[in-house]
C-alpha cells in the first residue's frame, strides 16, 4: 500500500504522520489522531457531518485526502472549542436545544461560524433564509432545523451588537 509522509498543523499542534495515500482527511483525524469530534455520515460529500476547517475554509473531510493537507493548517471542533472562537454559538445551541443526537452538530457549528465570519466581513446580519441556505449542505435528522436557525440567528444578532 502506497504511504506518504505528511506534516501539518492540527488545532495548533505540529503533526508528522505516515498515511496511506487513499486515507481521507476525516479518517486520518479520527483514526490516526483520535480526534473523533469530526463525524462520518455519508462518505460522499452530502451530509456535512465531517466538516472541518482547512487553511481557514470549511471543507468536507470525506472529500479531501489526508495527503492533500500536507503543510496545511487544520482546525476541528476540538480546536475550535478550546480556542473559544465558537463559544457563543455552542452556548446558543445548548440553550435553544438546537441539537438532539449531536452527531451533525460539530459540522453545523463549523458551517455556521463560516457564515457569521463572512457576514461580519460584509457588515450584514444574515436573515433566516440566508442561514437556511448556508446550512443547506449539512444534514440534521433530529431537529427539523428550526432551532438551529434560531440559535445561529441569535448569535448573528448578538455579534452585530443586538440583543441576544
Amino acid at each position: 500500500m502506497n504511504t506518504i509522509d505528511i506534516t501539518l498543523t492540527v488545532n495548533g499542534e505540529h503533526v508528522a504522520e505516515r498515511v496511506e495515500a487513499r486515507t481521507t482527511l476525516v479518517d486520518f483525524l479520527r483514526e490516526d489522531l483520535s480526534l473523533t469530534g469530526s463525524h462520518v455520515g455519508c462518505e460522499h460529500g452530502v451530509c456535512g457531518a465531517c466538516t472541518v476547517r482547512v487553511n481557514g475554509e470549511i471543507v468536507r473531510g470525506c472529500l479531501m485526502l489526508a495527503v492533500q493537507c500536507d503543510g496545511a493548517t487544520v482546525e476541528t471542533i476540538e480546536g475550535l472549542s478550546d480556542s473559544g472562537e465558537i463559544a457563543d454559538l455552542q452556548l446558543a445551541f445548548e440553550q435553544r436545544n438546537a441539537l438532539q443526537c449531536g452527531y451533525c452538530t460539530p459540522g453545523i457549528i463549523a458551517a455556521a461560524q463560516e457564515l457569521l465570519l463572512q457576514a461580519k466581513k460584509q457588515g450584514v446580519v444574515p436573515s433566516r433564509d440566508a442561514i437556511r441556505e448556508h446550512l443547506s449542505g449539512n444534514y440534521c435528522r433530529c431537529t427539523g432545523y428550526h432551532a438551529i436557525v434560531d440559535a445561529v440567528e441569535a448569535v448573528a444578532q448578538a455579534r452585530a451588537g443586538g440583543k441576544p
Partner: protein
Amino acid sequence: MKITDDSPPVLTALDRPNSYIGRSVPRPNLQRLTQGRGQYVSDVSLPRMAHVAFVRSPHAHARIESIEAEAAKKSSGVIAVVTGAELAKVMTPWVGVLTHLKGLKSAPQYPLAVGVACWQGEAVAAVVARTRAQAEDACELVAVTYEELPAVTDPETALDAKTPVIHAALGDNLCFERKLEVGSPDKAFAESDAVVETTFMFGRHTGVTTEPRAVVADWNAGEQRMTVYHGTQAPHMMQNLFAKHLGLTEAQVRVLTKDVGGSFGIKVHTYADEMATVALSKLLKRPVKFVADRIESFVTDIHARDHRVKARIGVNKDGAITAFEIDDLTGIGPYSVYPRTSGIEANQVVNLVGGPYTCANYRAQAKVVFQNKNVMCQYRAVGHPIAVAVTEGLVELAAAKIGMDPLEIRRRNLIADDAYPCVSAAGLKFEKLSHHESLAHLDSMMNYAGLRAEQKKLREKGIHRGIGFASFIEVTNPSAAFYGVGGAKITSQDGATVKLDAQGSIVVHTGVTEQGQGAEAVVAQCVATSFGVSMDKVRVVTGDTDNTPYGGGTWASRAAGIGGEAAWQAGKALRGNVLAVAGAMLQAKPEELDIRNGIVVDKAKGTERLALDELARVAYFRPDTLPPGFQAELMATRHYVPRGWPFAFTNGIQASYLEVDTDTGFVKLLKHWCVEDCGTIINPQLVDEQIRGGVVQGIGAALFEQCLYDERGQMLNGNMADYLVPMSAEMPDIECGHVVSPTADSELGAKGAGEAGTAGAPACVMNAINDALRPLGAQPLTDMPFTPGKILRALGKV
C-alpha cells in the same frame, strides 16, 4: 429567539418549590456534544480490536453455490473470512413472530445468509481484518458464485399462484393478515349522500440516521463475558437476544450504550450483520467492530411504509361521516424483523384509521406480504403516517365533495372533548383527548381566516397556495399490550435508582436511554423536583445493562411518560429516606421536614435546618452518632408500568401552508403548525423540538424520500445524492401549541410526544397540495412522495 421559559402550565401535586416540571431548562449533557466530545459507538476503539466488513449479495434472490475465500484470507491484515454455515455454529437463527398477531409467520434468519440470499445487500460472508480498509480490500477477493433466482418484488402479485414462494416451508408469501368489521359499513355507504373512493400510495423510505448503525463486541474468554458497545434504543432487549442466540445467560452479556447518532426506530431491531459481529467476537475471542457505511445503511437499515391503501369514506350533506373502509397491502422484506415483527405497522393502520372521529361503521383489511427487498419494520410513528394520511385525505376529499370547509367537517365529526373515556370504532380505548380544543387553538394560532383571504387574493394573481390539515391520535406509553403479551422479551416497565452521594449530590440510573430526545434531562428534572435539589446536583446514567435498572429503553414515545414517572417516584422515595435521616439528626418528625434546593427545611415555614452535604457526611462517615438501631438508606429504586390503559393516546392537529409552482411542480413550504396534547409537559422546549423534528421527518416522506427498486429487486438510489432527505433550505418554520390533558395513570400525568409530528405531517402536506391544485382541475394527489413530476402530471402538463 425563544430561549426563555414558556409559561409553566398550572400544576398541582407536581408544583413543588423549585419545580422543574413544565420548565424549558437546557439539557444538562450538551456541552460534550457541541464540543465534539461525545462517545458514539463509531468512536469506540479497544485494544486488539479488529474490524469486520461484509460481502453482500448483489442479487435480490440467489442460491449461494460456492464461496471461494483463499485469496481473501491471504490479503494484508486479514484475520478471518467466515461464511454463513460457519457462523451458524456460533449463533442460532431467529424468527420474527409475535403470538398476539395471530397467524403471523416468518422464516428462520441467520446472521449471515445460509444457502440462499433473499435480498440485495444481505450479508453472505464476513471478512475480519486489522483495519476496516483491509477488510474491505479483502471482500473484493471473496469469490461467491450465485445462481440467480426469480425475485418477488411486486406486492400486488406476491400472493398469485404463479409467483415464486420465497420460503417454501411457509407455503406462500403471506406474512400476516387482519380483517376487522365494526357497525354496518355496507348499509352506511349505501345510505350516504356521497361516497369518495381513492387509492393512497406510501413510498418505502428509511430512517437515514446521521450516525449509521454501529456495534463493537468484545468477548472475554477469560471472564466468559460478552461486552457489546451498541448504538441501540433498547440495551436490555439486546442483552436478552445476544445471550439467547449465543447460548449464554443474560448475566454473561453487558450492553453499553453511550451517545447514539440518531435512532427513530431504526436502532431498535435485530440486524443480521450486528448479530454476526457479536458472534465473530465470540468465535475470534477479540473485540470486533462494525460500522455500516452509508450504502450499507440504505440496503440493510430497516425500511418502512410501502403501503397501498384502497380507501373510501361515506359522508352526508351535513358533513356527518358515515363510514370508513380500507384495504391495505404492504410489501415487507423476505423476513419479518426480529423481535418486533414486520406486522405491527399494518396492524396499527387497521387500529388507527378513523381514530379521531365518532364514525361507528368501519371495515378494514390488511395484508402483509414478503418480498425480495430489504427488510421492513417499525420506524418513527409506526403506521400513524399511513392511517392519518388515509383518514385525513378522505376527510378533506369528502369536504371538497360536499363543499364544506375542511375545519368545519372536522368540528362536526371529531369526538367531543367531554365524551371521554370512550372507545373508538376499531376498539382503541381513549382516556382523555382534546380534539376540539386543539382545533380551536390551531384555528386562531394560524389565523386561518386571514390565510384563506390571502390565498384567495394571490390566486387571482396566478399564485397557487394551499392549506391542509390533519387531526391525529398517537399511541404513547405502551403497556405490555404492545409486545410482552405476544411473547417478546421487550419490557414495558422501567426503573430508576436514585442515590445520595457523599457530598449531597444525586446520581440517577435509569432504564430509559438517550438518543437525543432529552430523556436524561427529563429524568433529571423529575428527580430534582421530587427529591428537592437543583438540576446541577443531579447526574443521570443511562445505557448500561450492568448498572441501570432493567428497562425497555426509548421507543414508542415512552421515555418521559414511563421513565419519567419511575424517576419521579424514585426521587420521592429517596426524599423520604433522607428525611428519616434528617429527622434522626434533628430530633424532628420527618413528615414536618422537606428538602428544598438541596437543603432540609421545616416544611411549614421553610426555615433551613440541614444541608445535604452535612447529612451525607454524618450518614456515611459518622453513622455512630445516629440513634441506636437507625440505618440510613440513601439509595432508592422505583419502577413504573402503565396499568390503567393499554396505551396513553395523545392527540393533536397540524396545518401546512404551501405554494405550488404550477410550471415546475415544485412545492415551497411556507409555514407549518402543530397543536398537540401530550398531557403534562415536563419540558416545553423538548416537546416542541420533538414535534418539529418529527414534522420534518413527515415532510420528508411527503415530498422527497423513497427507496426506489427495479423489478429485479435492485435498489436504485441507495446514496444520499439520489435519496433526498429534508435539508434546511427547503424546510419551513414550525410553530407549536399545546393543550394539556394529563393521564391519570401516573402521578406525573405525562404522555409521549415523539411521534406526533411524523404522524400528521405527510397528511397535511398532501391536503395542502390538493387544496392548492383543486381549482386548477388537478386529480387529487395521493401517491407519496409528491415529486414535481407527479404534480405536473396531475396538472396535465406532462
